[in-house]
């Protein structure tokens, strides 16, 4: 006589209790300090960019799954995380249509066309950023200066909405006056014209120093700026064992080791490794982008190769390519070789002779 209320599903019958939603949520929480900082230093516009981008991702995910007649997976937080990550790679004054285009592209082309969560080849946020960077280079490299919330020159909420929705603030001359270049952009433009690093960095952009760069008080994408807060979130993820050290550490190594070597031999033309670490997207890339589980290798050996590759490509692109910043391209390029890495880094099975 069987009791129908008893489950007869297969072993194991117990579980450590973690879930996909937990993983995604942990990453979102880890990003919160840096996100708050972004809103603080760039004002309401930052908040609008984050909201619009995230919302576009969520709506796209929901509608597309509905179209595919699949249960909505908005609850798994992965679309929200993609939205947040993408927003953090955008300039503070990104127009609304660019945020929406990016969000839709990230979910639709970056994820759902492959079959949804778990099947995408490229990091959806980064592939969307790359798409925007190639399609709208002007808007994607328009860097307003730091303009903290509640400071005297801060935009009002109304101004912010106007900037994002129409590209016009009520005080256009103000917006113009504060536009600037990122430290990386500055360095590439100026050294490209034959200047030394020292001359380049001492030029128009005078705000750069290590403390400002680490805390985030420099121009750049929303989430690129505060290396310290991003690293704090990264350490939280390591502690919670959401990510392992292999990718972040090797990615830093892959970028900073060559940076140190070149800087040692020719400090006039190659900036120091601390500059590379604190500017641009290296920290957010190493802790949050390259570690995306779906698009990174599954074995430890593979993760080490992947991390080194991401770091090295970042340095190569930053130093010799046409773009001042290379983290997105580096990670996306390495994403493409993940299946190959996985295939060749399978662990030696127990009891197999080496």
């Amino acid at each position: 006589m069987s009791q129908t209320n008893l489950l007869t599903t297969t072993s194991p019958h117990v579980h450590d209790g973690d879930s996909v939603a937990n993983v995604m949520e942990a990453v979102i929480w880890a990003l919160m300090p840096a996100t708050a900082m972004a809103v603080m230093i760039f004002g309401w516009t930052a908040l609008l960019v984050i909201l619009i981008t995230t919302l576009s991702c969520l709506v796209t995910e929901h509608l597309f799954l509905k179209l595919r007649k699949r249960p909505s997976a908005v609850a798994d937080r992965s679309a929200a995380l993609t939205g947040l990550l993408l927003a953090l790679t955008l300039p503070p004054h990104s127009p609304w249509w660019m945020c929406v285009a990016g969000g839709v592209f990230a979910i639709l082309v970056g994820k759902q066309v492959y079959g949804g969560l778990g099947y995408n080849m490229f990091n959806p946020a980064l592939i969307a950023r790359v798409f925007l960077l190639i399609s709208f280079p002007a808007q994607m490299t328009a860097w307003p200066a730091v303009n903290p919330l509640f400071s005297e020159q801060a935009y009002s909420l109304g101004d912010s909405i106007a900037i994002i929705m129409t590209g016009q603030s009520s005080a256009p001359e103000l917006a113009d006056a504060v536009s600037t270049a990122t430290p990386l952009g500055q360095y590439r433009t100026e050294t490209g014209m034959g200047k030394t690093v020292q001359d380049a960095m001492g030029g128009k952009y005078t705000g750069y120093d290590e403390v400002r760069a680490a805390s985030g008080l420099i121009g750049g994408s929303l989430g690129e700026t505060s290396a310290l807060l991003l690293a704090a979130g990264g350490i939280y993820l390591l502690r919670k064992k959401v990510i392992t050290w292999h990718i972040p550490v090797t990615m830093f190594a892959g970028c900073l080791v060559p940076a140190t070597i070149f800087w040692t031999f020719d400090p006039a033309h190659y900036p120091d490794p601390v500059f590379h670490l604190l500017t641009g997207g290296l920290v957010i890339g190493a802790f949050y982008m390259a570690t995306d589980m779906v698009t990174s290798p599954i074995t430890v050996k593979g993760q080490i190769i992947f991390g080194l590759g991401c770091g090295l490509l970042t340095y190569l692109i930053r130093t010799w390519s046409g773009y001042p910043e290379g983290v997105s391209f580096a990670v996306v390029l390495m994403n493409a070789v993940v299946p190959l890495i996985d295939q060749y880094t399978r662990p030696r099975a127990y009891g197999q002779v080496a």
Partner: protein
Amino acid sequence: MLGSFHGGVHPHGNKGMASHKAIEPLPMPQRLYVPLHQHAGQPCDPCVTVGQKVLKGEEIGRSDAWVSTPIHAPTSGTVVGIEEYPAGHPSGLTMLTVVIDPDGEDRWSDSIAGIADPMNAEPAVIQERIRWAGIVGLGGAVYPSFIKMTPPKGKKVETLLINGAECEPYLTSDERVMVERAKETIAGIEIMMHTLPTSKCVIGIEDNKPEAIKAMTEAARSYNGIRVQPMPAMYPQGARQQLVEAITGKQVPSGARLVDIGLLVHNVTTAYSIYEAVVHGKPLITRVVTVSGRGIAKPANLETLLGTPIRNLIDHCGGMKPGVRKVILGGPMMGLAVDNLDVPVVKGIAGVLALLQNEIVDKPEQPCIRCGRCVQACPMSLVPSEMAWRAKVNQLDVMPELHLNDCIECGSCGFVCPSNIPLVQYFRYAKLAIQADRRAQKKLDMDKARTKAKAARVEQEKLEKERQKEAMKAAMAARKKAAAEAAPAEAAPAAPAAPATETVAAAVATDAAPVAEGAAALSDAESKAARAARAAQAARAARAAKAAKEQA
């Protein structure tokens, strides 16, 4: 120095519910259902009849096969049925079962007697006793112990490893045996060492069982070669490959037997059962079963007669609380969930667990997010995620490359999977599908060989017929010729007729020879192929029959 193994997980032990509960005997049930297949290998055939009185310890089932062990009556009473009865098997199928109504006297069979001086007995005597007593690996594999106790010729067991890890959460039966029956267990180990023979034994016990470590260390003190090795609690420490790696630092080569690297692993309760069988002559008719889980009112460790329905155990422990979602035979990592409380306790069942909703996994499967936790957790260093998705799309040909067959189905991967993918289920599916494929291929080969053999036979018969026809034609022609020749010479005396007949015969022979020769040459080549095909077919049929029998 204690090593470690790759991977592994840390499930919550949940042993506190039963670990301090002393072993107590379960009262005699109303009726016992003793399945005739409680071990790995061939099932037993009943050797009693319905209505027959049996005594405790009497054989009620045996098999002639090598990989098998007898089944004994757990108590004295009457056989009231030999019938198909639900068994704790994943398929939910029934099994041939001897049903016994106990007479309440619990009287031992007269033939029960220990071996007087086991430490001076011939190993063969002890091996035979272990076989007769129906002792199997009580850690769950239920492989007949006497086979492991008989090292193949030319192989030597250097070290005997005794598995007291009991790494499955909730279970405490091995622990209680070690705490309460340490002396007997060590005596059993000594007998095993004498039998193998070997002079070295390591008993591995997880350090979450300090009482057991203490008791066993104490009991082993006076023995030279026996050492108790505490090990950090880590699942699946008690899987034989992992135990071997943790204690010896060696890995068992894939596909090899432990004895090939001079090792042997036995479960600690098996050692106790060997003591009982050898010293007291008692066959394996009871075992300690942990009844636990948050769905059990009063968890306990029960000395249970084999064949007792699990309902009896649960009722004895105060019944199930409301809201029990799963009843499990064995541990929560590898055990079997059942929905029928009438299934009997058998040799391999160390626990009966009743788990509430908050203790189990009951979430839908989500897509793999490639987090790699299963790869980290796999104690066999496999890539569970890849094996699973390939199994899902039936890419079975790559499985050998992924070492699917080395998977021990420990469930570590499923335990850590944030997407709740039933990975082990996919592996079981793939293993069975590959087996089925192989069987189908075998059948196909057999059919092909049969068709070919038949074609050859038909061809040969045709040739044979033609040859006969030719021969007959030739004979007829010769006869006619002879008759025509004979006719004019009718007047001649009878004597020359004889040579004429000879001539005819010779003529026939000469005529027929080329045809026959050709046929012979043809049929020689043909029959060679046919013979080979027939031989191959016969061999395959024998193998298939054997496989089918094993499968059954």
